[in-house]
């Protein structure tokens, strides 16, 4: 296949790769790369570089960029290379640009033209190369430029081109659905393509289309089912087989589509039952791909309208997955279980021990998946155990992303199923304490909201109990040394709102604590702001209750500090606090009603409360307000602006380099005279400013109103409407209200966000109600599940041993054909050593069979062989890995030189077939010689017994 002929790069390049491979540290590597960048920068800009050299430079750039360095100086050369006539060069150019450029890069516009030309090429390989680039580079803006050509290619005689064209359209659809929505029928047509590859590719866009709009594709159910049936019955060419599974990738895609189409649709689902059942039966569960298809079947079954028979087979497969020794299968089993329990919750019960084993597994991935499952099956009876476990796990990990996720899950579950207020508050406290600032601020807001609104029951008593327990716990927690900011915000807000509500704590207690917070976290302005507002609330409530207010000295000093704060927000809060304290009880009650954080704030959008004021002003002779749309002067300006914007947006590439805002004003006069909308202002370039000023006086006459007002019009965009100035002074009071209730505002925003989450949760909740009913007996409630491992752990262990035992003979039988099965080999070896690997080989040709035999003997010899095997496990593993598949190395001497004597001293019998093989499979021993020569060229003697040299090289 001419692969080894690929060593035609120059010595320089090989040296570069080699020295990178030998670099002992990242610093050394960086130094080498920087050196290389300098060299390339110099070389690449030389004139008249031969194409071949240039191609190598570009490949070196790719290499540099792959190592994480910036090669942007060479991008333009890669772009140029795509223009080249020879495919050899062009292909490299396309490869480089697809690797270098993201779809929003400026250089892409330079490639579009080339792509257009190449899409029309009569050489299908050129078209393929261009289509590869289309998939990566064409963005929303440039889709129209290539769309017609890509459409034409759907009818190209070569299936490779049709396939890529389909995928390109798929990509277009992902980027901008509207641009290709009129072409959807083409996807349907391609489904009937003669070539299974093209048909398979068509399933990708169809899947996406169906996911967005199921109902328009219900008519295809029959077609998909019949395709799936044919695939499962091995009607496709053997070339699509994979480990004896007929076209598994196509099967998986089809099952995914069927899952979408059958979801909640009994009629459609009934069409699918037979074929899915068939696949369940036919799937070979000993190969990885077979299990992949089985898993997809389960997903499909759990998505379509339930069928008891299929559910049963799905449950069987799940239990097989869970009992397997492979972590991968356990993982898939847990995932599948999570899907299936939505429909038939009862199957969880038989797997509870397996689930608990997975939960305690050292493998983090498996553990997380299990938590996901638990999350799905949480109900009020087991919420305490599950959330407790989750929090324990959350504390133990350091991955912030996941910590955030699990924290929000804990919060969600606690909100939904909390058995008692006490527990709820405690749980939240734990989450906040440990997940710290990772918790989404929304969670904090929803917690505040929850404390404010209570649990929704109309039981005021319970609500106030909840609040007092919250206040109490927060006062205690404030003693802790370092608390996360978000948590402090919640604490401050709650203390401000409810600190003195039940009379257990005096105002001075609470304010003292709040001042401590503000002092201890003096760097955190948000916390300080919350604390100040809380202080204000406490004092306001005191005043409203006609109690005497004594400001603590530390509070006074805090206020003094804040009044002079650099933060205007803090300043304002401090001033407001001062103002509130000065007011009488009635006024304070209006501003700061007690426990009113959940009341709606009515916003008077018409500002009707200002009517009197306006009336008064007009009576005094003020001009009435003219709405923006009715102002003649404004109209033109905004029109012109709009025009400007239109122009800008219609030409995507104009970046407002020559906007002429000033002449715009000037142009109004001629515009008014000629009364044409298409005015191209021709300003005297010298005096734009002057002309602007001279036109100023003419505007007032134009608009017929006060000069002051008009000047403001000119800068209206910048400074807002002048007419509103009187309003702002009065609206201060409203703004004050919103300021002192910033948290209220927040609350409001979270209300909506919470609604959203509630909404999204709705369907789940519904299922879980059903689940609750059905599964009351199931997982036997929380305490039981928890105690189970303690009391019944031995049983669990024993049963799992049993499983193991029952499994071992089976698996060893399976692997009997290749004697390699051994625990000390890496897992991939085992994977590869699965009989299917060799048996496909068997099926393919007799030489493969020989190979299979050869492999096993090799493996065996390696395993039984010298302990040296473990010295260079890499290379051995490589040898072994590739062995199971389509093994044969023509530079075997190279490898054996590296690995160890046990392989080198292979029995002659095994050496023989190897030779014959290499000659049969690769009638080109020249290649191996070349490879060998290269290695020598690099200064390494391949047959030397010094493995260290190569270890370096291998990195």
């Amino acid at each position: 296949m001419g692969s080894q002929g690929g060593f035609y790069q120059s010595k320089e390049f090989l040296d570069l790769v080699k020295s990178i491979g030998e670099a002992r540290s990242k610093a050394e590597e960086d130094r080498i790369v920087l050196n290389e960048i300098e060299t390339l920068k110099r070389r690449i800009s030389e004139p008249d570089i031969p194409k071949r050299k240039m191609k190598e430079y570009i490949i070196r750039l790719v290499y540099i960029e792959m190592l994480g360095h910036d090669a942007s100086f060479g991008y333009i050369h890669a772009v140029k290379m795509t223009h080249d006539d020879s495919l050899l060069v062009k292909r490299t150019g396309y490869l480089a640009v697809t690797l270098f450029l993201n779809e929003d890069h400026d250089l892409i516009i330079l490639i579009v033209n080339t792509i257009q030309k190449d899409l029309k090429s009569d050489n299908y390989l050129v078209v393929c190369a261009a289509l590869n680039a289309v998939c990566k580079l064409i963005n929303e803006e440039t889709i129209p430029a290539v769309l017609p050509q890509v459409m034409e290619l759907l009818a190209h005689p070569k299936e490779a081109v049709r396939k890529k064209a389909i995928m390109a359209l798929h990509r277009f659809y992902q980027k901008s659905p509207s641009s290709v929505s009129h072409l959807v029928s083409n996807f349907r047509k391609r489904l009937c393509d003669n070539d299974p590859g093209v048909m398979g590719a068509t399933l990708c866009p169809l899947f996406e289309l169906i996911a967005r709009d199921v109902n328009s594709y219900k008519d295809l159910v029959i077609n998909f089912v019949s395709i799936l049936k044919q695939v499962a019955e091995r009607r496709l060419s053997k070339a699509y087989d994979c480990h004896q599974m007929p076209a598994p990738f196509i099967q998986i895609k089809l099952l995914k589509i069927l899952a979408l189409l059958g979801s909640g649709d009994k009629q459609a689902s009934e069409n699918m039952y037979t074929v899915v059942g068939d696949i369940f039966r036919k799937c070979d569960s000993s190969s990885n791909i077979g299990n992949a298809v089985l898993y997809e079947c389960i997903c499909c079954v759990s998505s379509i309208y339930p069928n008891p028979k299929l559910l049963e087979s799905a449950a069987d497969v799940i239990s097989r997955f869970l009992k397997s020794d492979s972590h991968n299968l356990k993982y898939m089993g847990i995932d599948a279980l999570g899907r299936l329990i939505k429909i038939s919750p009862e199957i969880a019960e038989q797997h509870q021990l397996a689930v608990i084993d997975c939960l305690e597994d050292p493998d983090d991935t498996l553990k997380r998946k299990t938590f996901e499952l638990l999350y799905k099956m949480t109900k009020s009876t087991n919420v305490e155990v599950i959330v407790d476990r989750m929090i324990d796990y959350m504390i133990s990990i350091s991955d912030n992303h996941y910590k955030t996720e699990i924290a929000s899950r804990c919060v969600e579950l606690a909100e939904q199923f909390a058995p008692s207020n006490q527990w709820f508050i405690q749980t939240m406290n734990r989450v906040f304490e440990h997940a710290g600032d990772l918790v989404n601020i929304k969670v904090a807001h929803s917690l505040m909201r929850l404390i404010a609104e209570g649990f929704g029951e109309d039981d005021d008593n319970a609500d106030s109990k909840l609040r007092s327990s919250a206040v109490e716990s927060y006062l205690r927690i404030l003693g802790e040394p370092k608390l996360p900011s978000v948590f402090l915000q919640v604490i401050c807000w709650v203390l401000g709102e409810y600190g003195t509500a039940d009379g257990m704590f005096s105002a001075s207690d609470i304010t003292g604590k709040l001042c401590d917070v503000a002092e201890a976290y003096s760097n955190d302005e948000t916390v300080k702001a919350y604390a100040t507002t809380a202080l204000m609330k406490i004092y306001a409530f005191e005043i409203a209750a006609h109690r005497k207010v004594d400001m603590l000295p530390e509070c006074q000093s805090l206020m003094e500090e804040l009044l002079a704060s650099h933060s205007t927000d803090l300043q304002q809060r401090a001033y407001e606090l001062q103002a509130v304290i000065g007011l009488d009880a009635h006024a304070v009650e209006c501003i700061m009603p007690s426990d009113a954080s959940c009341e709606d704030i009515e916003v008077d959008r018409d500002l009707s409360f200002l009517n009197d004021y306006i009336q008064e002003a007009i009576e005094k002779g003020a001009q009435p307000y003219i709405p923006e749309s009715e102002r003649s002067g404004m109209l033109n300006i905004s029109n012109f602006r709009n025009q400007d914007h239109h122009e800008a947006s219609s030409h995507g590439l104009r970046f407002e380099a020559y906007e002429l805002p000033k002449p715009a004003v000037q142009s109004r006069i001629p515009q008014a005279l000629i009364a044409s909308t298409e005015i191209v202002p021709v300003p005297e370039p010298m005096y734009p400013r002057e002309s602007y000023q001279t036109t100023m006086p003419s505007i007032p006459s134009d608009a017929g109103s006060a000069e002051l007002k008009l000047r403001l019009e000119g800068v209206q965009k910048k400074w807002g409407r002048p007419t509103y100035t009187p309003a702002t002074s009065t609206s201060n009071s409203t703004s004050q209200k919103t300021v002192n209730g910033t948290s209220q505002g927040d609350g409001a925003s979270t209300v909506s966000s919470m609604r959203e989450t509630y909404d999204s949760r709705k369907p789940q909740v519904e299922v879980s109600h059903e689940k609750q009913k059905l599964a009351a007996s199931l997982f036997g409630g929380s305490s039981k599940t928890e105690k189970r491992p303690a009391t019944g752990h031995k049983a669990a262990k024993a049963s799992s041993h049993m499983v193991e035992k029952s499994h071992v003979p089976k698996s060893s039988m399976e692997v009997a054909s290749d004697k390699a099965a051994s625990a000390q080999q890496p897992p991939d070896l085992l994977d590869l050593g699965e009989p299917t690997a060799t048996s496909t080989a068997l099926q393919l040709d007799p030489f493969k069979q020989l190979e299979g035999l050869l492999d096993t003997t090799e493996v065996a010899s390696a395993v039984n062989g010298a302990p040296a095997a473990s010295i260079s496990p890499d290379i051995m593993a490589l040898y072994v890995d590739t062995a199971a598949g389509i093994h044969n190395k023509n530079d075997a001497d190279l490898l054996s030189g590296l690995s160890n004597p046990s392989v080198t001293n292979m029995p002659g019998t095994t050496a023989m077939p190897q030779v014959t093989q290499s000659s049969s499979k690769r009638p080109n021993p020249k290649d191996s010689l070349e490879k060998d020569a290269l290695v020598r060229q690099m200064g390494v003697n391949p047959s030397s017994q010094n493995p260290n040299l190569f270890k370096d090289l291998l990195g």
Partner: protein
Amino acid sequence: MIHFVLLISRQGKVRLTKWYSPYSQKERTKVIRELSGLILTRGPKLCNFVEWRGLRVVYKRYASLYFCMCIDEDDNELEILEIIHHYVEVLDRYFGSVCELDLIYNFHKAYFILDELLIAGELQEPSKRTVTRLVAAQDSLVETAKEQTSSITNIIAQAAK
């Protein structure tokens, strides 16, 4: 959809990167660093999947090379594992029992092959034979082109004499 493909050696050296979703150069470096920290430290008997930033990374070790693909949460992990194996098998056919050295020195070829296998983050061709044939067709074209250019330069060189 596959968001990116990474080939990392056991020592954390990058052998191949292909990004199907947009990542800036800075993000790429970060992703690689994070993932190699995550994957290379995992024990041999654990799952071949890792959860990472709400996505899932499926990896498989072949000799000293880790093949990683990052996918969405609702994709089929076992299928991706098979795609990785698929890729390795095609590489193996192409290079004739591939080893890490082949990929180090011929990374661009590995890219060409990957481009025939995956496109826009999806598997485009489930048949190994077709992929191999296509790549071979391109290579043979390249070879003939090379011969042509060399013969033309020869002619020119002779004419110049």
